[in-house]
């Protein structure tokens, strides 16, 4: 039941992302997607395996939900927000917008805890903030760096 709801929401988000016009170049999207994959997998392994702050459920359907959200949902949300951030010219407003993204990611993580995908062990909202602050921050600055490369090679006008 929970898996179908989450998968339906994920699919709706993906379809919306595909049809709504974006400001980013396709390469930026691909780059960010891979950056979030690499960061997300590394950080979640540190949290789950090494620090044992969270535990993954032993239900197979929920385990696959965890895999799908890591591969699709989180990168999609980060890319979408960074794409919208291109419309914001004011630097402070831009950083506040990224802060909103971090809070949304934290909320989603707590939704997964409440739905039983994750089992809370020594987890707190502070760790969640560090996790998503780091992921969004590193993704943002790496994206800026890649975007400059795209401009340099005139792939983006």
């Amino acid at each position, binding site marked *: 039941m929970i898996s179908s709801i989450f998968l339906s929401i994920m699919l709706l988000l993906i379809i919306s992302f595909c049809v709504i016009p974006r400001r980013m*170049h*396709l*390469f930026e999207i*691909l*780059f960010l997607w*891979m*950056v979030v*994959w*690499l960061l997300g*997998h*590394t950080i*979640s*392994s*540190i949290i789950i*395996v*090494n*620090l044992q702050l969270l535990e*993954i459920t*032993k239900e*197979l359907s929920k*385990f696959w939900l965890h*895999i799908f959200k890591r*591969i699709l949902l989180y990168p999609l949300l980060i890319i979408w927000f960074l794409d919208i951030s291109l419309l914001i010219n004011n630097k402070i407003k831009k950083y506040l917008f990224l802060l909103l993204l971090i809070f949304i990611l934290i909320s989603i993580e707590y939704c997964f805890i409440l739905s039983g995908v994750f089992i809370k062990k020594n987890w707190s909202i502070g760790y969640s903030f560090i996790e998503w602050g780091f992921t969004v921050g590193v993704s943002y600055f790496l994206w800026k760096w*890649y975007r400059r*490369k*795209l401009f*340099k*090679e*005139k*792939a*983006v006008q």
Partner: protein
Amino acid sequence: MLTLPKHFDENEWFIITVVLLSSVLFKLPKRLPTVITILILFLSMAIPKIIDHSIAAAWPYNLYDLTDSKKFELFDVILDGVYCPFGYLCIYFYDKFRPKDFKIVLYIISWTVFAIFFEYIAVKLHVFNYHGWKLMYSFPTYMVVISLFLLFYKFVTYYYRRTLET
């Protein structure tokens, strides 16, 4: 955080050696645009990362372990760098020789055989410690991954040229 290896032995030396040897790639004449090279390198790291973290995780499949322990070690992260030269060279030589028709199949098989050989050495040196995985399972896996990799390269180069033209 990231744990350090309990014993600094052959698997750590293997990872360090391959990563250091990868620096030779910078000496190769540039064939691909930088923005595409970056995508290729990131994809080379991302695909194995997703596979490793899905099927090698302690639950539910636990088909193999990386390096010394079940914990996520520093060398598990450095291991990502081992995949970069593999992906880059696969695309580099594809771009250089531009195989056509059946030669593309031969090209994919050649890289698969090379990858299997490379993995065999990695297994012998305990970089990968199999529980339920077998080397023969890697053959179709590499065939799929390398084919998708080449398709990805074809697509991004086509898109890159199209962007420059418009």
